[in-house]
């Protein structure tokens, strides 16, 4: 990233202002997606399109020269969104209860994304780790619940 203000720990971990600068951008994009998803929730169902637009934005950064931490943040978010779309878009069997659980999971993901945005802005590594762990956990726990509902209904 070539900034004179950055502090590199010698193994490529950029803890400097540029790393934080980019994460502030990502945090702002997360907020925008969260806001749009919250607005869509008022009409009865959380729309995933803001998340797809957010994924495209962060993936456009993937070719830039990034610090290891920024790369990690982008990879984590992009992979999580990819997984979410792979498993929840398209021909997922419909049931009212599974749909309710799915929406509950989406709402949890939205809340956790918002917390992750705060953590990114704070620059606190522990907070970022905690927020990202919570985000992944909310998603995977939600998947488990939806899967159980669908499987039980089939039985």
């Amino acid at each position, binding site marked *: 990233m070539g900034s004179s203000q950055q502090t590199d720990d010698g193994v490529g971990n950029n803890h400097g202002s540029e790393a934080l600068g980019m994460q502030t951008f990502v945090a702002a994009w997360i907020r925008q997606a969260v806001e749009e998803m919250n607005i869509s929730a008022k009409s009865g169902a959380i729309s995933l399109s803001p998340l797809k637009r957010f994924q495209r934005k962060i993936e456009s950064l993937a070719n830039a020269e990034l610090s290891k931490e920024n790369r990690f943040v982008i990879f984590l978010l992009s992979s999580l969104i990819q*997984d979410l779309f*792979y*498993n929840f878009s398209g*021909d*997922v*069997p419909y049931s009212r209860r599974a749909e309710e659980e799915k929406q509950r999971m989406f709402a949890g993901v939205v809340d956790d994304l918002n917390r992750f945005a705060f953590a990114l802005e704070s620059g606190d590594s522990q907070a970022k780790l905690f927020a990202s762990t919570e985000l992944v956990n909310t998603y995977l726990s939600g*998947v488990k619940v*939806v*899967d159980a509902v*669908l*499987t039980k209904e*089939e039985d």
Partner: protein
Amino acid sequence: MDRKSVAMYNPLDPIEREMCHDIARSCLKNSSYDLTSGGRGGDFFDIDEYTSSKSPGAENGQSAAEKARKVADLCAKKIDELKSNGTEIDRLAFTERDSGPVGMITYKDLIETVANMETCIIRPRKRLLRSALKGRPFNPGERVALISDVATSGDTIHEAAEKIWSLGAVVSCALVFYDRLEGAREYLSLYDIDLVPIFDRMNFEEENIIDPKDSQISNVVQLIGVGTTS
């Protein structure tokens, strides 16, 4: 190369021999790539290349549709042989991965028509079990034959079989176009899955397509770059 499967060597009839050469020329390439099992591969096999306009059959005026029909006919013939030998098959299953379709899925509808059998798609990487099956839900104990292009370690087939079992059906066998003879048969037999290849590496060696001494493929395209396959 693991030769444990050589005892199962499968001789070819004249039509299969001709097709063996056509298929090898278009689908088999010297390469160096990562397998989905995590190992390394040297002979890349892509059944979709057979119907491409660059494949050898195109030179003698065969259309992609004619070649696709040959693939489907060969699969249907093998399925008929299996059924007449006592293997019970109610439905054919093709596999799709998160990284995209596994070879043979292109031929799904054609094989369904030619073999006159119902088909479905298994998506082993779906986190929701009910999304792992595209098609009508399985009847309890329904007997399914998995159809795939290549068998190497058997991992992809086993992964698909696990979803089929979880969905209440039974795996009758796994029919593959090409068995690399690298242990898939033995691995799958641990789970009572019978691996049935149309062609295997021994066929290609017998036909002088692959040199058994140095494992290099003769008279086929050099593949530039890397890919992944099963």
